[in-house]
């Protein structure tokens, strides 16, 4: 297909419009975080950093942030262990069910989060487990595992099997091979998987709604405040903070493993 001049021009215009559609809203809320007034109208009457200080000293925001950090780190740790184990198993060992395993792992992300949320909530009630940090972590880890899995298996596919055989021929046993061959080759994939898992967990709100009970993670605090229409100037600030804590790890992960692999970890 040879695109004429006009077609190319129209495509360019389309691309620019889509980019504006994607990024103008994000730019706007970043601007609103510095809104001086507590009225949300446009244009903002002036710029100030005062709401950042207010939000930072809000004890509710602080405890929600702490809970989100704890949940994110623990879920990431679980996802790292189980996700890379699954990747090793599926990669090194071709068996009839490997497609089924991949499908099973991606299910919590491909099915609406509300299903995972209600399913876990029913199960926790059934076994009499009270909603707590533990239940939040269980929920988050379940949908984060696939992110680490996708990153690690993509890397394993690029590592040639002859490396392991060479190591074995040179007399290296399992642990030594792991330390000198597998680990260095996987380190960036693991790190980027961990960053992506953390970003996913830190922002998650739908599953968390059904697994957190009375506690607030940061997204739950934001959701509650928006619904009540309260503390909106603080919401402006906290929302941008969450935005940064999702975008920065992802940008680093994309540097480490390439933006294609970062995108494919999810889709």
């Amino acid at each position, binding site marked *: 297909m040879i695109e004429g001049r006009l077609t190319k021009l129209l495509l360019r215009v389309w691309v620019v419009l889509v980019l504006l559609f994607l990024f103008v809203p994000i730019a706007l809320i970043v601007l609103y975080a510095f809104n001086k007034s507590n009225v949300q109208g*446009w244009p903002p009457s002036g710029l100030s950093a005062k709401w950042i200080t207010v939000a930072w000293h809000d004890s509710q925001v602080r405890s929600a942030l702490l809970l989100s950090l704890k949940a994110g780190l623990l879920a990431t740790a679980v996802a790292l262990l189980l996700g890379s184990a699954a990747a090793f198993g599926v990669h090194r*060992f071709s068996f009839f069910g490997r497609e089924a395993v991949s499908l*099973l792992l991606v299910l919590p992300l491909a099915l609406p989060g509300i299903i*995972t949320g209600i399913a876990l909530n029913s199960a926790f009630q059934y076994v009499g487990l009270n909603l707590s940090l533990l239940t939040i972590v269980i929920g988050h880890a379940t949908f984060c595992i696939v992110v680490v899995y996708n990153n690690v298996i993509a890397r394993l596919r690029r590592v040639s099997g002859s490396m392991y055989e060479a190591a074995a021929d040179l007399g290296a046993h399992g642990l030594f091979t792991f330390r000198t061959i597998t680990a260095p080759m996987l380190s960036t994939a693991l790190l980027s998987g961990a960053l992506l898992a953390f970003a996913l967990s830190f922002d998650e709100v739908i599953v968390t709604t059904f697994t957190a009970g009375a506690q607030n993670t940061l997204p739950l605090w934001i959701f509650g405040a*928006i619904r009540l229409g309260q503390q909106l100037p603080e919401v402006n600030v906290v929302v941008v903070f969450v935005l940064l804590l999702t975008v920065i790890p992802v940008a680093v992960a994309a540097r480490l493993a390439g933006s294609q692999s970062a995108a494919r970890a999810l889709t």
Partner: protein
Amino acid sequence: MSATVEVRKGPAKAAGPTAGISRFLWRHPWLRGLATLSPPLAWFLVIYLASLVVMLLTSFWTVNTFTNQLQHTFSTANFSQLFTGTYLDIILRTVLMAAAVTVTDAIVALPFAYFMARVATARTQRMLFTAIMLPLWASYLARVYAWIVILQKGGVLSWSFQKIGLGTVNIGYTNTAMWVVFCYIWLPFMIVPVFGAIERIPDSLLEASGDLGARNWRTLRSVLLPLALPGIVAGSIFTFSLTLGDFITPLLVGGTNSQLIGNVIYSNIGTADNLPFAATLALVPIVIMIIYLTGARAMGAFESL
């Protein structure tokens, strides 16, 4: 000379217990696979799949209206309630919304993905990919919130419309607002797989189509679109499925007439406190997705995957 070289099969004979273990595992690869696969599989079977089963069971239970306790006795009352006018309307609205969002995102994504894959230079392509990946991962709540700020009374949108002289526009808290926000949130999920599909189409196929006398429009319709379809379907699994279960967007930017399945599930956990009915409702998106995927498969959407 060559006779002195010992050709070893398998790993060298290193000493020590770990060497023994690694030798054993090397000779029994299925055991190695099993050892690494079983913890994650156990997690998914014991926690995820078992929870889905409990949810299915819960959907047949009821709540005692006096004590508010779950009654573990089999009843199809929830399903009879589900098939009444109110809930069927909500299910229909949700499916229509999911379909509208999917179609819109596919239309928006196609030219964009085409440009990325076939027109852009390698450098521009990398830049665009990053530009898609950031909103794909950027905080969901922040992006919904941005639209509340844009669409509200006296927000950016109505301000801009007045400045250009297009009169007042007030789509905040309506189904239209919900449609815009869903399209916005899920758009990157559509662009990434569509780009992947278009990128994989060999140039020669498009050239052959031209050599055989097809104009661009015909090539687009008969060659490019069918080959891009698996990508569109892959993207639509996300746009469709994620819309089916969302309750944040309808609650935050929808209006009084914007109840989706997700909202109703949410209110049955919160205010109404009826977990069995919530579980029944949560089965609806699963069933719809199964029908959707079966239909897509019957249409041959997965054949070229």
